[in-house]
C-alpha cells in the first residue's frame, strides 16, 4: 500500500488496475480505430462508481480524496486515453464544479444520474473563434422574464455528440459571463459530430449550435456573471488535475511499451536495450515518468489539504506531465522503429494521444504564463527590511 492512500482507497485502486487490465486495455486499440466509446464500457464503469470516483457517497460516488483519485485516473488512463477522458469531463470538470457551485436541486437532479451514466454531460466553452482567449466567448445570452435565451456556436466539445446535457458558457451584451445547464432536448440545440482528430478519437467530439435556445433561471450554474471567474476557473482547475495524471498515465504506458520492445527486439545480434543510445532514451523516460508522478502527487497532496497554491501546482503538473508524455511517447515510437509507425503496436496511438494533452484544458503556452506569474511573485527575493534598518542605524 502506498503512503499516499488509505486501505479502502488502496483496494479501489487495485480493483481499478485489474479492471483496466481486463476490461479496458484489450479494447483500447479498437476504441481508437472505431472512434466510439462502447456504451457497455461506460455502463460497466458507472456500476462500479467510477464515473463519480471523487464525489461523496451521497451522490453515488466513491469518495476518493484528490491523491487517490489522481492515482485512479492514472490506472484508467494508462489503459485507454479515450476512456480516461470520460472521467476528465464527467467526474472532474462537470461533477466537481457542480458539487461546489450547483444548487441543492441541481446536485440532487444531475449528480446521481451522472454517476449512473443515466445522463452524460459536456463542458462547452471553446468556440470556432475563441480558444485560449476564453473570456471573450461569443455565444450570447439575454434575459427575457425569468428565462434566458442562448445563441451561438461551440466547437471541439468532448462528448457533445452523445451528451444528454451541456454546460454552456455564454456572455451578455455587457460581457458578463454566465454558465447554463442546457438539456439536449431543448428546441434550437443541434450537435454536429467532428471526425478526423489526431487523438481523443473516441470522445465523441462535436460542435454545438444554439439557436434561440430557452432555458429557465434555475438552469444557471453558479451565479449570474460568475461563469468565467468561478465556473470556468473551477472546471478547468479540476480538468487540469485530471490531465496532469493523464500525462503520467500515457508516459508510464509508453515506458512499459518501450522497455518491452527494447528487451525483445534484436539488431546486430543484440537486444536493443544493449545499445547505449537506446539506454539513454530508457533512462530519460524512467526519470521523466517518476518526476511527472511526483509533481502530480505533490499537487494532489496540496489539493487534499486545501492549500491555496494547489491551483498553481496543478498547472505546473499539467504543463510538465503533458510535455513528458509527448517526449516519452516520441522516444517510444523511435525505439519501435517501423513498428512505431503502425497501429499494430500501441506506440503511435500513445504518441497521438500525448500531443492532445498539450492543447486541452489550457495550452502549454497558457500554462507557462500562469506559472511564470506565480514564479515571479513566489521567487522574488524579499527586501530584508530589518537588516537594512540595523545597518542604517
Amino acid at each position, binding site marked *: 500500500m502506498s503512503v499516499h492512500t488509505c486501505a479502502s482507497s488502496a483496494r479501489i485502486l487495485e480493483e481499478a488496475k485489474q479492471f483496466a487490465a481486463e476490461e479496458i486495455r484489450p479494447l483500447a486499440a479498437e476504441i481508437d480505430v472505431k472512434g466510439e466509446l462502447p456504451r457497455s464500457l461506460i455502463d460497466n464503469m458507472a456500476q462500479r462508481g467510477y464515473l463519480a470516483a471523487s464525489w461523496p457517497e451521497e451522490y453515488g460516488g466513491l469518495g476518493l480524496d484528490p491523491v487517490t483519485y489522481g492515482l485512479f485516473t492514472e490506472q484508467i488512463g494508462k489503459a485507454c486515453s479515450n476512456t480516461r477522458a470520460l472521467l476528465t469531463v464527467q467526474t472532474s470538470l462537470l461533477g466537481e464544479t457542480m458539487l461546489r457551485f450547483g444548487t441543492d436541486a441541481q446536485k440532487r437532479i444531475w449528480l446521481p444520474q451522472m454517476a449512473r451514466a443515466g445522463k452524460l454531460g459536456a463542458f462547452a466553452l471553446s468556440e470556432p473563434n475563441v480558444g485560449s482567449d476564453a473570456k471573450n466567448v461569443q455565444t450570447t445570452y439575454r434575459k427575457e422574464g425569468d428565462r434566458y435565451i442562448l445563441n451561438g456556436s461551440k466547437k471541439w466539445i468532448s462528448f457533445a455528440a452523445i451528451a444528454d446535457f451541456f454546460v454552456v458558457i455564454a456572455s451578455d451584451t455587457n460581457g458578463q459571463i454566465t454558465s447554463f445547464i442546457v438539456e439536449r432536448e431543448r428546441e434550437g440545440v443541434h450537435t454536429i459530430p467532428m471526425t478526423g482528430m489526431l487523438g481523443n478519437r473516441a470522445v465523441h467530439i462535436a460542435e454545438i449550435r444554439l439557436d434561440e435556445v430557452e432555458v429557465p433561471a434555475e438552469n444557471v450554474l453558479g451565479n449570474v456573471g460568475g461563469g468565467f471567474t468561478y465556473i470556468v476557473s473551477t472546471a478547468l482547475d479540476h480538468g487540469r488535475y485530471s490531465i496532469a495524471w493523464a500525462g503520467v498515465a500515457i508516459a508510464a504506458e509508453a515506458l512499459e511499451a518501450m522497455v518491452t520492445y527494447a528487451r525483445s527486439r534484436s539488431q546486430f545480434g543484440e537486444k536493443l536495450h544493449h545499445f547505449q543510445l537506446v539506454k539513454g532514451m530508457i533512462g530519460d523516460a524512467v526519470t521523466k515518468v517518476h518526476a511527472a508522478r511526483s509533481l502530480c502527487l505533490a499537487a494532489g497532496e496540496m489539493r487534499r489539504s486545501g492549500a491555496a497554491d494547489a491551483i498553481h501546482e496543478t498547472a505546473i503538473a499539467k504543463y510538465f506531465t503533458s510535455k513528458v508524455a509527448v517526449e516519452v511517447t516520441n522516444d517510444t515510437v523511435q525505439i519501435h522503429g517501423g513498428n512505431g509507425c503502425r497501429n499494430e503496436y500501441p506506440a503511435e496511438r500513445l504518441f497521438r494521444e500525448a500531443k492532445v494533452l498539450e492543447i486541452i484544458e489550457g495550452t502549454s503556452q497558457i500554462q507557462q504564463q500562469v506559472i511564470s506569474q506565480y514564479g515571479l*511573485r513566489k521567487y522574488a527575493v524579499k527586501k530584508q527590511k530589518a537588516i537594512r534598518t540595523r545597518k542604517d542605524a
Partner: protein
Amino acid sequence: MENKQKIRDFIESNLVVFEDEAVFSDDDHIFQMGFVNSLFAMKLLGYIEQEFGITVGNEDLDIANFSTLNNIVRLIEKHKQEV
C-alpha cells in the same frame, strides 16, 4: 494576526504586477487596478473558505464582494456572524 492583515498578506503574495511600488489601499479595487487576475478570484475564494471556515454561497459570489480589502473583510464578518 487580525483578519485584514491576513488577507492583505494573501493578496500581496498573489499580485500579478511586479513593480515594487505596487501598493493598494483598503478600498482600492484590486481587480480593476489589474493587480490580480481572474484565477486569483477562485484562489481567494478557496483561501477565505479554508482559512476562516466559512462557505460562501452563490448569492455572495458577486465580484464586488471581493473587489477591495474592506469588502472581503465585510464578507467574512457577515458569514462568521451567520455561523
